C-alpha cells in the first residue's frame, strides 16, 4: 500500500507554505523531509497524520483517501511530534499501558517496546524524573508498541545521544525492511537505503512528481 500525495497546498495564516506538492512512497520506502525551519515539514507531517485538514490536493495510502475516509487512513498511521505527550505523574510502564489500551495494542508488547528504546530499567519510574532524552525515547516507544504501516516522525532524534539516535535509525530501517513506510523530518541520516529527500518549500512540480520511490515500478499505473 504505497503512500501517494498529489497537488498538496498548505497555507499557515496568510502565507502559502507550499503548493502543488506531490510525492510517492512505495512499500518499504522512506521519504526524508529536509529544508530550513518553516519549510513546512511539521505541517506536512501533521497533514499526513490527519491532524490538519487537506486544503487542496489528495493523499492516499493503498487506495484509502485521507479526505474521504479519514478514519481508515488514520488507523494505518503513527505520528510522533515535537511534544512527547507524557504525563509527569505516570510511570513509563503506565504511559505505555494507556497508549496500548487506547490504540488497541496488546499490553504484552509494553515490555518489548520499553526494551526497544532501552527504557526497561526505567519502567517503574515516574515520567517526572526522566531526563529530556529519556522522555523523548518514551515518546517514541509508541512506534514499537503499536503496529502501523506508515510512520510519520517529526525530528525523532532531537535531544537523543548518539547511541539512542542510532537505535531509532535502526528501528526505522527495520520498519522499512518489514514493508513499512517512513516519512521523517530529520537532520541526521537514518541510513535507510534508497530513501528520497524532499524540501517542501523548494519543491517544484514541473521537476517531476515522483520522489521518494525506491522502486518506481511499484507506482506504475497509479493515477496522478
Amino acid at each position, binding site marked *: 500500500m504505497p503512500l501517494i500525495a498529489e497537488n498538496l497546498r498548505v497555507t499557515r495564516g496568510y502565507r502559502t507554505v507550499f503548493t502543488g506538492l506531490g510525492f510517492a512512497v512505495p512499500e518499504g520506502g522512506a521519504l526524508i523531509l529536509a529544508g530550513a525551519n518553516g519549510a513546512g515539514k511539521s505541517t506536512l507531517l501533521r497533514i499526513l497524520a490527519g491532524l490538519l485538514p487537506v486544503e487542496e490536493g489528495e493523499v492516499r495510502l493503498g487506495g484509502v483517501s485521507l479526505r474521504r475516509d479519514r478514519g481508515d487512513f488514520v488507523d494505518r498511521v503513527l505520528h510522533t511530534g515535537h511534544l512527547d*505527550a507524557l504525563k509527569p505523574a505516570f510511570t513509563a510502564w503506565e504511559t505505555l499501558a494507556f497508549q496500548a*489500551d*487506547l*490504540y488497541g495494542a496488546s499490553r504484552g508488547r509494553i515490555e518489548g517496546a520499553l526494551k526497544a528504546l532501552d527504557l526497561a530499567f526505567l519502567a517503574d519510574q515516574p515520567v517526572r524524573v526522566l531526563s529530556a532524552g529519556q522522555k523523548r525515547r518514551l515518546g517514541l516507544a509508541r512506534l514499537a508498541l503499536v503496529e502501523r504501516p506508515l510512520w510519520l516522525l517529526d525530528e525523532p532524534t532531537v535531544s537523543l545521544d548518539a547511541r539512542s539516535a542510532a537505535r531509532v535509525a535502526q528501528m526505522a530501517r527495520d520498519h522499512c525492511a518489514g514493508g513499512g513506510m517512513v516519512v521523517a523530518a530529520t537532520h541526521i541520516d537514518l541510513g535507510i537505503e534508497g530513501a528520497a529527500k524532499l524540501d517542501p518549500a523548494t519543491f517544484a512540480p514541473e521537476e517531476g512528481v515522483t520522489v521518494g520511490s525506491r522502486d518506481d515500478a511499484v507506482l506504475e499505473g497509479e493515477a496522478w
Partner: protein
Amino acid sequence: MKPFLAIIRRDLAIAFRTGGGGALGVAFFVIAATLVPFGVGPVPELLARIAPGMLWIAALLACLLTLDRLFQADVEDGSMDVLALAPLPLELVVLGKCIAHWLTTGLPLLLAAPVMALTLGLPEGAYPAMIASLALGTPALSVIGAIGAALTAGMRRGGVLTAVLVLPLYVPTLILGALAVNASAMNLPAAPYLMLSGAITLAALPLAPFVAAAGLRLAIR
C-alpha cells in the same frame, strides 16, 4: 469500549495524583457556601430562604474552577494529538474526559452538599430534592463546560474566557436546579423541575461532545 474506559481511567488517575481528586473542587464549594452567612449576616430565616440558590451557584463555580484544564493540559503536552489519532472518534474522547471530570467534581459535590445545606439551614424536607437536582444537573455542567474548555484549550490564559463562555449556558440548569430545591423547601412538588433539568442533561450529553470536539480540532491545528 476499551479505549473509552482507558481514557476515563487515565483522567481519574491524573486527577487523583496531581489535583487531589475531587478534594479541591469540594474545598472550593465548601468555602464558597460558607462565605454566604458572612456576607448576608447570621439570619437563619434568610439563609434558609436563599440556601437552594447559593448551593447551586457554589456548585456551578466549583465545577467551572476545574474546567479550564480539562483539555488545555493535553493540548499543551501533545497528548491531545495522541488522543485525536486514536481509533475512536474525538467525540467519545471528549465524553470520556467529561465522565472523568464529573466523577471527580460533580459526584464529590453531591456528597458534600448535605453538609453545606446543614450550614445554611436548608429545611430537612428539601434534602432529597437537593441531592436529586445536583445528581441530574451536574452532568450537564461537565459536558456543557467542555464546550468552553475546548474553545479555550489552545490559549494560555483561557480560564476567565471559559467562565464567560460557559456561565450563560449554565443558566437553565441553575434555574431549574434551584427551583426544584426551592419548591421542595416550600412543600411543593419538585418533580417537574427535576424532570426538566434531567431533560437538559439528556440533551447535552450526546450533543455537547460534538461541539467540544469541533473546538478541539481547531485547537490542535
